[in-house]
């Protein structure tokens, strides 16, 4: 990562070169704007959208759907994951159902959700929650199960109750797994919200994208793609920010040197 200002400049130069090549290719091959627009026309569409205040309300809608879905989906995933991790009986009965649902592409359920919950906010939130649910639930289960046997024995030797073992050992121990799940869940929630908007919606970036598709405003669609990836980065950064605060003790991701394997080499 830290390679100095020269390589950072080279990196920017590389991106600029790619954009220039794209611009030139569109001009040279006379590609129609409704197939692939030039970067300059995408930037112009973006500028137009901003000055006409086109995006703001749609971005707001997509963000609120994503965040609400994230919170609802993650809360349920954490609760169910905890129950499954702590109770063998619950695990035994729920496991086949969980496996079935996990194998199913969740976005395929979105049309049904729209039928059941309408075109408004509720259906988008449910869709986002559903897609965000599984990565966090799986990580919660794995994380809670990952407590080191020596540490469990230590807690037991102190006459700790089951609740204390959960609260003082299993839960903090699971936090790195849970945060990894949360990072995925955030991006997945955005996917869930966008898919629901694309299929049928009154508001949101997905809906805007769909309406631009009908008018063959391809440059506009590209501008939304750009907004979406910035949005994804910001939402992901939000979780990473909280993780750094909470998991100050977890060095496994910064240095990639966790207790089991300290010789995995550089990640970057």
């Amino acid at each position, binding site marked *: 990562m830290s390679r100095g200002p020269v390589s950072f400049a080279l990196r920017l130069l590389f991106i600029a070169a790619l954009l220039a090549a794209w611009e030139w290719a569109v001009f040279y091959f006379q590609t129609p704007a409704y197939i692939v627009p030039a970067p300059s026309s995408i930037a112009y569409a973006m500028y137009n959208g901003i000055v006409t205040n086109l995006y703001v309300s749609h971005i707001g809608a997509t963000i609120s759907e994503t965040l609400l879905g994230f919170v609802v989906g993650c809360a349920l995933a954490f609760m169910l994951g905890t129950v499954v991790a702590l109770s063998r009986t619950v695990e035994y009965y729920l496991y086949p159902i969980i496996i079935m649902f996990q194998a199913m592409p969740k976005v395929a359920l979105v049309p049904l959700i729209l039928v059941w919950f309408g075109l408004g906010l509720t259906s988008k939130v449910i869709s986002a929650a559903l897609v965000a649910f599984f990565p966090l639930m799986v990580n919660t289960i794995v994380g809670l199960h990952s407590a080191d046997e020596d540490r469990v*024995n230590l807690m037991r*030797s102190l006459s700790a109750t089951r609740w204390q073992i959960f609260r003082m050992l299993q839960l903090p121990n699971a936090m790195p797994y849970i945060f990894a799940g949360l990072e995925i869940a955030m991006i997945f929630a955005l996917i869930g919200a966008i898919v629901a908007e694309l299929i049928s919606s009154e508001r949101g970036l997905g809906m805007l994208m769909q309406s631009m598709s009908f008018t063959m405003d391809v440059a506009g669609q590209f501008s939304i793609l750009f907004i979406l990836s910035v949005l994804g980065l910001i939402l992901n950064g939000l979780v990473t920010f909280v993780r750094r605060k909470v998991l100050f003790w977890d060095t496994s991701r910064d240095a990639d040197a966790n207790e089991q394997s300290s010789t995995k080499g550089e990640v970057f």
Partner: protein
Amino acid sequence: MNAQAEMRQPAPGAVISVRGLSLKYGRGAAGVLALSNISFSMAEGEFIAVVGPSGCGKSTLLKILAGLLPQSEGDAELNGIPITGPRRDIGVVFQAPVLFPWRSVLGNVMLPVDVQGLDHDKMKQRALDLINLVGLNGFEQRYPRELSGGMQQRVGIVRALIHDPAILLMDEPFGALDAMTRESMNVELQRIWMERRKTVLFITHSTVEAVFLADRVIVLTPRPGKIGDEFSVDLPRPRKLSIMNTESFGTYVRRVRAALNPGGGGMD
């Protein structure tokens, strides 16, 4: 049980008494006998070292005494009461330091206080005193990852002392340290023991460490683990590392070695 109760009076002053203890992993013919017919008792304030090679069942013995593992046969009593589960008057030090990375040094030392709901303010002063005793003053707010292996193990020892247990069970606590750190830890442990006068059962695979530390050495021979020899070490305390060069020290070490290698040891 009733008929035998009178015969099984523990030796007067015995803190721990073990009679005819056996442990079998698995059932039937496929079961493995880990411990066979172990009997010994520990007087109050006594330092006993159990020495034996890997796989002789010494850790298993410690787990039974810590109440983490039920024995298959025989009796294990603490102050005349059968050990049926973890007890608060026992402190355990494990092979690895087994620290919680999300707790500071002070937080790790205070873990037994949190688990057992002891007076936090009173125990905090005690924790700071003990941290001082092992020379970790100034490191109270550091996290385990910032400490060396020897420092981490000292935190583990202090944690076992914090709730002032009468008995300390130590399972190869210095096994993972380099030879030089290990020797200085032995001197330090002797000092702590002489200051605090706990009853200590110290498990090790080092003959030298066993003779250096113990009032009495129990030699366990493997497959199945049974007592091969047992003798008192009459060397004056405090013992210095230089005592290892004396003739009488060498005699004790040879005695352990003879019990571990009845055939003389070696191939030549």
